[in-house]
């Protein structure tokens, strides 16, 4: 059973061929995955990375929608202008107050609502649906509704206040109360969704942990602090990010309810960008402010992930 010369030779050839095949297949191995993700990658480049890049490009120019042919390179002048503009400072401060106000109130409220509503009886199901319902109404309708509720003269809220003998509140009509009123609307709108997600999170915590805790006679507060909260931290993390980002981009309620007023007290980043770009024809300023918005959201998200790596308990 000795191999002959011929077969040896043929096996050598075979080896060469397989080697060739192997290097070819190694090459296809490296390329093939990219081919697979190509459609998605193209999609992302076209609709995400290109617009971001183009926006950054535009932010270095003085241009307006009125006359695109008159676009002019101005370097960092747009950024310099908004950084020195006291109105823009106010806009950023308003956005930050609004965002943290909305997220903090909404998350705390929905956490306790979730603890309360996370039960089996039918009435709790109905309550969950009721709390969730604002989430499915369009923000435009919500804004119109609350404008009526908050009308200083004919509104329901002031009618109730006055019925109980309290003085009427100014709501959207005064600089001191308008931003708070917008926070109230967005909390009302967002709390239902957050509650439902919290309830889902609560239900995914294994019961045996609680059983173990109760065997060890851990008190209710202690169970909450040592089991529920840590086990819920991925949910909390997810909701915080989603809420932060969406609050940072508030637009509809401002556009419909206050137009940024009175006296710019509710003017926030996205509305400012819209107003500069579409109403005042300052495309460069609008693009520069968009870059600032991108940066701020980027920093926030980065901090979050950094924090999450240390504190969030994934199972």
């Amino acid at each position: 059973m000795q191999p002959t010369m011929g077969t040896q030779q043929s096996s050598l050839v075979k080896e060469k061929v397989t080697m060739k095949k192997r290097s070819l297949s190694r090459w296809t191995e490296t390329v093939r995955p990219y081919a697979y993700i190509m459609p998605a990658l193209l999609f992302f480049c076209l609709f995400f990375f290109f617009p971001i890049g183009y926006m950054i490009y535009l932010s270095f120019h003085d241009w307006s929608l009125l006359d695109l042919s008159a676009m002019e390179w101005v370097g960092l002048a747009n950024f310099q202008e908004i950084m020195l503009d006291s109105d823009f400072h106010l806009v950023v401060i308003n956005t930050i107050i609004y965002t943290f106000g909305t997220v903090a109130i909404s998350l705390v409220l929905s956490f306790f609502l979730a603890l309360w509503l996370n039960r089996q009886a039918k009435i709790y199901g109905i309550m969950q649906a009721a709390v969730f319902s604002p989430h499915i109404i369009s923000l435009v309708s919500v804004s119109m509704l609350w404008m009526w509720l908050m009308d200083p003269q004919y509104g329901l809220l002031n009618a109730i206040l006055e019925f109980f003998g309290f003085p009427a509140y100014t709501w959207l009509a005064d600089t001191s109360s308008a931003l708070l009123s917008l926070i109230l609307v967005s909390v009302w709108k967002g709390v239902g969704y957050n509650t439902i997600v919290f309830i889902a999170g609560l239900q995914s915590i294994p019961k045996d942990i609680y059983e173990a805790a109760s065997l060890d006679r851990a008190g209710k507060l202690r169970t909450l602090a040592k089991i529920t909260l840590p086990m819920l931290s991925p949910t909390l993390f997810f909701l915080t990010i989603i809420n932060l980002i969406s609050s940072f981009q508030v637009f509809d309620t401002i556009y419909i309810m206050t137009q940024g007023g009175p006296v710019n007290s509710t003017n926030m980043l996205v509305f400012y960008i819209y107003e500069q770009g579409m109403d005042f024809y300052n495309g460069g300023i609008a693009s520069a402010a968009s870059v600032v918005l991108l940066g701020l959201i980027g920093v926030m998200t980065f901090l979050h992930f950094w924090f999450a790596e240390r504190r969030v308990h994934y199972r």
Partner: protein
Amino acid sequence: MRKQKLGVFLGTIGLAAVTGITGCASSNQAAPSEPATTDAGASAEVKQSSNAPVQIDFWYSVGGANGEMIEKLVKEYNESQKNIVVKPAYQGNYYENHTKVLSSVTAGNQPDVTMVEIASVGAFADAKVLEDLGSYAAGSEKKYIEGLMGNSYWEDKLYAIPFNRSTPLLYINRDMLKAAGLDPNGPKTWDEMRSFAEKMTKKDGGKTSVFGYSSPIDIWFYEAMVFQSGGEILSDDGKKLMINSEAGKAPLQYWTDMMKEGTMKAPPGEKYNAWDVASQDFLNQQVAMIFTTTGELKNMREKAKFDVGTAFLPANKSYGTPTGGANLVVLKKSPEEEKKAAFDFISWMTDTAQTTRWSAATGYMPVTNDALEAAEMKAVFDKDPNFKVAVDQLQYGKPRPMVPGYKELQEVIMTEIQKVVLGQSTIDDALKQAETKSEKLLKK
């Protein structure tokens, strides 16, 4: 794991940024995209056979009953001839429409005819968005009332034809004036209005149930009151804001004094919301006199359960008023054939027969000289003299400032005068602030 997280991280901020940027534009896209396809179809058809009608798009920005009247007139125009078909589309208020027009021009699917708020004609013409109508009109523009043409020219070229034109008026509740023993024709001067307002203001306990006077804290009424005090908004060359002066301070002093006395209500709400509140308060008889546009006249007459009167805005040193409303323009980017059709439509829309009916149906002013003499218009004036007040007031009318940066400047002025009204700034500081900010804007 790290890589994946980085990916999620980048994805999140990418998504956030993109929704931030495109969020603004998306609301405008639905409307223009539809006429675009019909546009292309129409011009192709025109080339194939000259008998097919030219289709033109017309975007307008008055809603409600006034908007229905526009639709009705357009329909009549389409039925009156076979060569041109006009497709009207409502695009929100003046400024919403401007935004949509500009984004559609950028995208190349602009309308052929649109309304432009008179103070913005300058910005649009300066940016070469509008067609020079001089050769189309060829002298026919002389038929329009001279006092309404102030916002039609930019650098001596004709760009816009007056259409729904207005002045602010003083609306009075005659029943209340009579009940208080006052002249039912309304006050003639600022001082008279102040004392009228005082006599009609009613207090129930600590609460005011009826205010004598109310006006939206809006640039238009402020402009009027500056004119009445003998002042100007901008210098003649349009390079300098002139309101940091006695005439610029007088309206704010007047308003704040009356608010201190508790006889004036500043309606809450921003921009046109405040106008709605003022009208609603007036209709509900919670305010006896308001400033609003003559374009509300028909609406007020129909809805009020009391005798509505109108009068000139009261005089300080003299009578005075800006004109207002919108003009019709043709977009430069439209094909030649559609531009011709567009001007034909504009001439018809603003001709004596149509402008008379438009005026009678809305309260806006008729725009041609002949219309003022026309029998139909005279019949309307006889039946309800309120319809003539704006036309008569026009002798004291001035165009609105129309330098390209004025839209932003008017927001700056409004913010400053609102600060005064809300008690957050003194009159002197506010006007100084407006002046400082104006320097940059007027340089453009």
